[in-house]
């Protein structure tokens, strides 16, 4: 890392520790809302890079010059493939170098596309290997299944030209896509050819755009959530309460999984999980609709919380997040809701990430009450 940088003051960088990664793993899992893949392997990769002497640093979005060039990067593909065919480790760095070469301009900072799940770790490895900081923000504030669901895309940034690198060394540039949905469709087809997993970097953005349209402080939020769970476990406090307190969440339901239906629709795992309440919810029933992530929470058949607000399922005893892939009949879970960031609640955003966008035209997004929004 150079001592001086024309775009930011190196004194403002926060260097992450191995302990931070443990907290981030949990926090990013919580923000994944059941999707986004497991951050565990990404954490291991980041740890190995740390051991090899690379520094992983965070920088607040306000601390970078508005003209700095920022590139967002994230993994694309099936998490189940990724647990067997592990990434090579330098795919993100190759994306970054290819993007610099294609655009003829250097990248100054890396941006996270999706803080929820595995994609929280990918920018750290990419930026660390390149000697760049990661901005403390992201494009979703949670996990979503498709690329056009970032606030970057929603508020008008065109994600092409983009670069897609796989572990084999293939480099694919999408010079131009006529729409974000087209880009998603082409990238999805490409990732199958590449073996089910790749890294994708989208067109660089000016820091001024990121400052305006990224979800702010996502890494800080994920770290705080993870730290809250770790501290609660250490002090034998209720981790569910700790999570709610940390980020203004609301405990919706405590129950056991009484039924689980899953099927495939257009490449996405779609399903429904039914819960039977215990404790404070004894005698109540609830369901959550799944489309890779937890989308709709219903109590006794009545819709109570919907996407884009965050529906989070945690192991009731440990506070660890449960992804949709490891849901099982009989699991004891707590369901929480965290309010979506304001940038996901605008009419413009709701067209892309509201209930209709996921095939629920009859459901109107009713935001979680403002009283619970935002931590103190």
């Amino acid at each position, binding site marked *: 890392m150079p001592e001086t940088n024309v775009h930011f003051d190196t004194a403002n960088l926060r260097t992450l520790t191995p302990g931070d990664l443990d907290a981030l793993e949990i926090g990013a899992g919580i923000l994944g809302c059941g*999707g986004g893949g497991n951050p565990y*392997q990404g954490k*291991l*990769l980041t740890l*190995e*890079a740390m051991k090899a002497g690379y520094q992983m640093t965070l920088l607040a979005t306000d601390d970078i010059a508005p003209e700095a060039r920022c590139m967002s990067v994230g993994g*694309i*593909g*099936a*998490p*189940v*493939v990724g*647990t*067997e*065919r*592990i*990434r*090579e*480790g*330098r795919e993100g760095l190759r994306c970054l170098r290819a993007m610099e070469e294609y655009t003829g301009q250097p990248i100054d900072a890396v941006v996270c596309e999706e803080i929820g799940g595995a994609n929280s770790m990918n920018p750290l*490895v990419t930026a660390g290997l390149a000697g760049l900081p990661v901005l403390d923000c992201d494009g979703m504030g949670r996990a979503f*299944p498709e690329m056009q669901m970032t606030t970057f895309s929603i508020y008008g940034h065109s994600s092409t030209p983009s670069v897609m690198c796989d*572990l*084999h*060394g293939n480099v694919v540039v999408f010079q131009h896509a006529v729409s974000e949905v087209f880009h998603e469709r082409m990238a*999805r*087809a490409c*990732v*199958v050819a590449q*073996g*089910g997993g790749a890294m994708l970097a989208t067109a660089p953005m000016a820091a001024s755009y990121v400052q305006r349209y990224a979800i702010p402080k996502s890494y800080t939020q994920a770290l705080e959530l993870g730290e809250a769970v770790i501290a609660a476990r250490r002090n034998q406090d209720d981790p569910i309460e700790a999570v709610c307190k940390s980020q203004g969440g609301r405990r919706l339901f405590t129950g*056991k999984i*009484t039924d689980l239906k*899953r*099927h*495939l629709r*257009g*490449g*996405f*795992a779609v399903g429904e999980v039914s819960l*039977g309440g*215990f404790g404070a919810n004894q005698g109540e029933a609830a369901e959550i609709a799944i489309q*890779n992530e937890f989308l709709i929470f219903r109590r006794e058949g009545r819709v109570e919380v919907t996407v884009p607000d965050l529906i989070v399922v945690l192991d009731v*005893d440990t506070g660890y997040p449960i992804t949709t*892939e*490891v*849901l*099982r*009949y*009989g*699991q*004891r879970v707590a369901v929480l809701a965290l309010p979506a960031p304001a940038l996901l609640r605008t009419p413009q955003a709701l067209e892309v990430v509201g209930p209709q966008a996921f095939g629920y035209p009859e459901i109107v997004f009713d935001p979680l009450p403002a009283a619970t929004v935002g931590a103190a």
Partner: protein
Amino acid sequence: MYRVGIDVGGTNTDAVVLEGKRVLAGVKASTTEDVTSGVLEALEKVIAASGIARDEIAAIMIGTTHFTNAVIERRHMDEVAAIRLGLPSGAGLPPMVDWPEDLRQIVGNHGYQVKGGFEFDGRILSPLDEDEILRIAGEIRAKGLNAAAVTCVFSGVNDAMEVRVKEMLEGECPGLRVVMSKDIGRHGLLARESAAIMNASLLSLADRTVAAFGEALKRAKIAAPFYITQNDGTLMAADVVRDYPVLTFASGPTNSMRGAAFLTGLKEAIVVDVGGTTSDVGALSMGFPRQASTTVDIGGVRTNFRMPDVFSIGLGGGSLVVETGDAVTIGPKSVGYRVSREALVFGGDVLTATDIAVASGRAEIGDRAGVAGLAPDLVARAVARMTEMFEDCVERSRVSSAPVPVIAVGGGSVLMPDRIGELEVIRPENFGVANAVGAAIAQISGETDRVFSLIDGRTRESALAEAEAEAREKAIAAGALADTLEVIEREDMPLAYLPGNATRIHVKVVGEMGTPNA
């Protein structure tokens, strides 16, 4: 003909004799360092107690925690060449990357990454680098290693490269034992690789242990074949354990739950196994323990074995009962197996959970006079606290609101009340040796867990049928009777985020063991 079940635990070696569905006798002996003499003592005792003739024993089934304990205690493990086929995939995460440092050193930290592997749909990821395998073989000879573990990316889809490398290494390194990951674990590279490496490091201990069991049988003049139980409650022939010791991990709780199912005839129930220090609680579903869904940590290493979803609380017969102000605390501290000397009812001076059970009239053990001086109020509060602890853990294990019975087994089960909330508590005869019974009744299984590509006319249904056929074939090869096989687990999970057509299928079948050759 009779079946003999033996449970070799850390402290006790229990044995039972079964005739059909009847338990003829159950005994306890102490586990010994050499294994052989403890097993021999238990065998002699149970033969004497049941009065059966030695040549009427059809088979002996042994459950053991020996291999799990070796990893936990870091004992008896060999160095292993850990070879992964898959570069450039996984280059940043070498073998054993998430192991505790001490364990990695114990197995020698000989990690190798080589070009090879398959994609999820069976395409080749990289051609196998055979020159590199030959070079590694040279290093194995130079280092004098006796065991290797080979793990290939997507070996569940295609095992050709693992098979090829095993063949090459055995040719190049005479006497080298080579473990293939496809035989050990399921989908999920790091966890399967870790299991294969642990398995390779335990091969020589497995040889010695199986030999020790064989020696005990020989000294007892028993000619029947013997089997060892694996983590899913099914059997492996003793010689198979020489190759797959890790498959015995966590067989203890499985055996006690299966034993409880057998002793009561119940298929849906909650089982509470109360020992000296802890109680293990789990749910039976279709007569088998419900499996845990999370990764299982063995000695600090993440593995993806299927393990019973068992919850432990610090409440057993030897748990200390302490009064502090208004509150009564029970456990987790315990006098453990010393309860038979240190508890008040046995003339000792420690107030234990067993003393409370006697004082309250729940149990008649030892000398009641030892607890005559206890304040009735203290006894009442301690009983209430124990009941609350049992209710709590039973409640956690229930999978539905249906009122299933609770089966109490284990030496400390006298602590259990007659009802837990609305649920009836059942105490089977021979409750103290339920895990040896579980071993005696173990069945044979076959399992498939891999990704199927839905191409060339293969549908989800035909892939499920294919997976079941594979699992049945494996079970029959392991000694199961074909017409007794039934599917006990069937799951398919489409690969998310891919518009293609691939699905991960898990199928397990179990069946009765074929009549062993006399």
